[in-house]
């Protein structure tokens, strides 16, 4: 994932919700960054199905179980056992 402002890949993770870009110091929400990232990825590779490992690999860091469940619950739809498809934010 990249900073949406300066496109840097260098983040400091505060918690499972907030990240700070180490280049421009912008603080952003993990959900927001992940949504933007997977939205663009969906344009390039539509209808891709992701496993837990794939999602962590794309994010670039590991999440705890709670954060992972929250992320998949809000942005993904389960298509089979441990496989998810990106749908965009569902509040």
């Amino acid at each position, binding site marked *: 994932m990249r900073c949406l402002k300066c*496109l840097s890949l260098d983040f400091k993770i505060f918690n499972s919700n907030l990240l700070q870009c180490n280049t421009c110091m912008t603080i952003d929400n993990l959900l927001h960054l992940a949504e933007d*990232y997977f939205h*663009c990825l969906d344009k*390039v590779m539509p209808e891709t199905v992701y496993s837990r490992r794939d999602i962590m690999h794309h994010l670039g860091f590991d999440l705890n179980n709670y954060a992972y469940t929250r992320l998949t619950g809000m942005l993904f739809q389960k298509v089979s056992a441990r496989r998810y498809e990106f749908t965009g934010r569902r509040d």
Partner: protein
Amino acid sequence: MRKKNEKLKVYEFLYNRLPFSEDEAKEYQALRRSEKLEEAFERHLSRIKTANMEIHWHSEVYVDGRCEFIHVLLVTDYCYYIFILHDLAGSHYINAFNILCNDAHDAVLDLNRSEKLYQMFRAQLIDEGAFQRPIIVKYVMMNDEFRLKTRKSDLFLSKENLDYYLKAIEHSAVLKKKDAPLPSRLITET
């Protein structure tokens, strides 16, 4: 609230992940410049009330086979306003062929295209009923260093006049007379 151009989002996503061709690199730079201009325009727009108008950002239209980028389309009860933003700097003049040229006599902008753009929108933006809202096309020069010598043109709007122009749009955005017929729903030809 304005959303970033989808195309620019994808370009930023692919930047340094996949190689760009020369055309793609140019398009990416052009989209980034447009994004900065739209941000600047949005700051001016935030100074007026926009509840009574529809705002459409970054549309691409084809005029005579060439792509034209419309940065902002403002729709009010009275009128359609098309804003095309530029960041040209320095002295310019309009030559006899209605082309904007810089001091080095290089053609920068073909102003005849604004008429074609107007005709294209006129053909597509059709209101029901007798009242057809006028369409106004403006080139907004967002750079303070832009100067227009010799013949002036109503097509251009300078950055310093932009606030006044938007304020005038705000005041005229709504039909004041209670018994005046509202322009009916917009029909767009696809």
